């Protein structure tokens, strides 16, 4: 099935002390099935807000978000989310964390499924570890496995690699691409690293800050596997940095 996500005139304002504050203004976007879409923008431009609205954890003040023809109303397991901050349930082991969504939804054979996704993110052998026994990168891998386990149509990722070191980050990016290739998920990936966006994305959405608007959507027509420092990658990076720099 084709999972198509459409955002139409999405605006979100929050109440502030002096009246209201526009977090997002008039966002229009169509995400293609199985697309890897990156969203970049300065801090506070509303990237998290955008993902939360798609996840159904927040709602637009006006405009609409449509998934497969129906408006999004509230969270649902067909939209998986990996949060910006660490979000593992600390009282559950790796296995139990990955099983969580499956269990809530009353799926069968949850242990087998969970183990499969733990293997997919390369954590076989850590099934019975508690989150406090894992490194930051490992925790995010578990979060990814947990989000994938319920087989969502769309995977929303909010700076998932923001708090790991550069080397681990590169590794995790490669793993994510591998997973994406295998599972054919639609991925919306928020980052404020231009490098990360160019390495991962089919298209990059560039946002401006306050209020958050879409400045430009750039297609990344560079063949995979991409080299992180090739000429065309650098040219695109340059272009993105310019776009971001001139609108701060």
């Amino acid at each position, binding site marked *: 099935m084709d999972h198509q996500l459409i955002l139409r005139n999405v605006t979100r304002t929050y109440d502030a002390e002096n009246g209201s504050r526009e977090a997002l203004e008039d966002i229009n976007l169509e995400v293609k099935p199985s697309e890897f879409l990156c969203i970049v923008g300065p801090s506070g431009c509303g990237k998290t807000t955008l993902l939360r609205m798609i*996840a159904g*954890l927040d709602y637009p003040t006006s405009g609409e978000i449509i998934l497969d023809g129906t408006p999004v109303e509230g969270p649902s397991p067909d939209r998986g*989310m990996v949060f910006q*901050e660490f*979000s593992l*349930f600390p*009282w559950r082991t790796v296995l139990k964390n990955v099983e969580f969504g499956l269990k*809530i939804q009353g799926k069968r054979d949850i242990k087998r499924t969970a183990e499969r996704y733990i293997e997919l993110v390369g954590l076989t052998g850590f099934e019975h570890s*508690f989150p*406090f026994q894992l490194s930051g990168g490992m925790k995010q891998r578990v979060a990814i496995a947990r989000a994938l386990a319920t087989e969502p149509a769309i995977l929303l990722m909010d700076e998932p690699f923001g708090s790991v070191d550069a080397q681990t980050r590169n590794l995790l990016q490669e793993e994510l691409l591998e997973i994406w290739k295998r599972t054919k998920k639609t991925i919306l990936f928020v980052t404020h690293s231009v490098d990360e966006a160019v390495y991962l994305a089919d298209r990059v959405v560039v946002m401006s800050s306050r209020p958050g608007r879409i400045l430009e959507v750039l297609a990344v027509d560079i063949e995979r596997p991409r080299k992180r420092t090739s000429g065309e990658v650098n040219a695109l990076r340059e272009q993105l940095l310019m776009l971001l720099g001139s609108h701060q």
Partner: protein
Amino acid sequence: MKLTAVIRENGLALLPLILVLLLWEVTAGYVIKNSLFLPRFSAVIASIYTLRNLLVPDLLTSLYHFGIGLTLAFALALPLAIVMGWFRPVFRAVDPIIEILRPIPPLAWIPLAIVWIGLNDYAAGFIIFIGAFFPILIDSYSGFRDVPRVLVETGMVLGCIGHKKLIRHVALPYALPAIATGTRVGMGVGWMCVVAAEMFGVGNSGLGYRLFQKFYFLHQMDYVIAYMLVLGLLALVLDRMFRYFVEERLFRWKRGIVK
């Protein structure tokens, strides 16, 4: 283990203890020489032996009162803590009442306990309940109130729709350590109420009853102190058992946070 090894490992804890007991023995025996004012330690130990046939029934009665009070406290505090911690408006509505009732010393409830319940075991249990209820309630609702938003939202995107599922699968497990802490504190406070709860004639056994109504009445201070020691040691044992059976087993996952 060899004796020397025991001493080497526990010396720092044992030595001062032994010194205090010796000091007590010597002061009582050779300086004060008045067993009403301060009986000797050895006399107290001997009393424990003399009283061995009274001790067990008294202990059981006290544990019974304690059990009534604590069960009641837990059974009422936990549901209230869930709704107070999880639903903001409930907290705002109920908290003022709690804060007015909480500072009232449990002993001040004795007259009401007698009038409402009568002179029976449940009246004693009620006083212990008053002592244990508030610590359990307050630690527990804090646990529910402090669930990180990201964990709640993770629960939601993974399919926990509605408060019931979120409470059961996210908030409750998160709050369990706080509930356990509150219960432990509540057990401590409840136990401190045992003597008072048995003082006003709810029956004719119990550690507190015996201590106050019998031994003190007859000025048998060695018996009084013997019972005091038993009260203290029993609380220590209860606390250790709780730690061992509940906290250490249930909260392995917390090790990274607390230890």
